[in-house]
């Protein structure tokens, strides 16, 4: 998997998070995974189609998901309801959407699919052994969001 496909998602995550959550994220170390899986409790999965295709996952703990949703809604949430889940989903949608714009500008036309939210640990998303690159992003006072990117050129 090309590293140049990861940077647009990290850049988009930084600008979207700063704007909708109001904190300055800190980037962690890039690692690789042999296949697309997540060990996080709350995951937003977005699909990418076009000249570049695959999936991008935003994974976080339930506590972080609560804090992210609270920040986006402007008030603490009592239960992780449909509104809170849709806020987390929309965060992933905005990051992937903005990243797809950057990818298109770099010459890789692509579209994204509506986000789906998967809760539960050790979720293997794809049975194909397409490697994934992972960038953890630390949000001060909120927690960590793992950006898991598994994209390849369309065959």
């Amino acid at each position, binding site marked *: 998997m090309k590293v140049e496909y990861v940077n647009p998602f990290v850049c988009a995550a930084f600008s979207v998070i700063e704007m909708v959550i109001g904190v300055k994220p800190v980037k962690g170390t890039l690692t690789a995974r042999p296949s697309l899986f997540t060990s996080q409790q709350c995951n937003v999965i977005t699909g990418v189609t076009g000249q570049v295709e695959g999936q991008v996952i935003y994974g976080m703990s339930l506590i972080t998901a609560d804090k992210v949703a609270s920040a*986006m809604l402007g008030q603490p949430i009592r239960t992780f309801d449909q509104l809170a889940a*849709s806020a987390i989903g929309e965060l992933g949608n905005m990051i992937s959407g*903005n990243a797809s714009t950057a990818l298109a500008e770099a010459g890789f036309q692509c579209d994204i699919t509506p986000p789906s939210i998967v809760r539960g640990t050790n979720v293997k998303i794809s049975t194909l052994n397409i490697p994934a690159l992972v960038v953890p992003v630390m949000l001060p006072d909120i927690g960590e969001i793992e950006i898991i990117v598994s994209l390849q050129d369309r065959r």
Partner: protein
Amino acid sequence: MAKRVLITDDALFMRVTLKNILTKGGYEIAGEASNGLESVELYKQTKPDLVTMDITMPEMDGITALKEIKKADPQANVIMCTAMGQKSMVMEAVAAGARDFIVKPFQPEKVLEAVQKIIG
């Protein structure tokens, strides 16, 4: 009488956000659609003054819904409100008759300005 806006977005969070912004701006909400298909139906039923249209949605995407709405009513005022801002997407929306194109995330003022410019 207050001008009426139909909100279209698959994310409940975004519908609530847009509803708050528009209500505070003095607009009435004609309806809320969670996909393109619902938006086209609600447009015909409620005849709003303006539609906010997301693009990435299940069932029917916002570009298709925009085209369907313009087919039903060539005078329809539709502004796109989407996370995708690639030139090809903006050009397709404008060619299909979208009046404006707002990229998410947005500032509330940006939405009100765009709506005001079109329907006052």
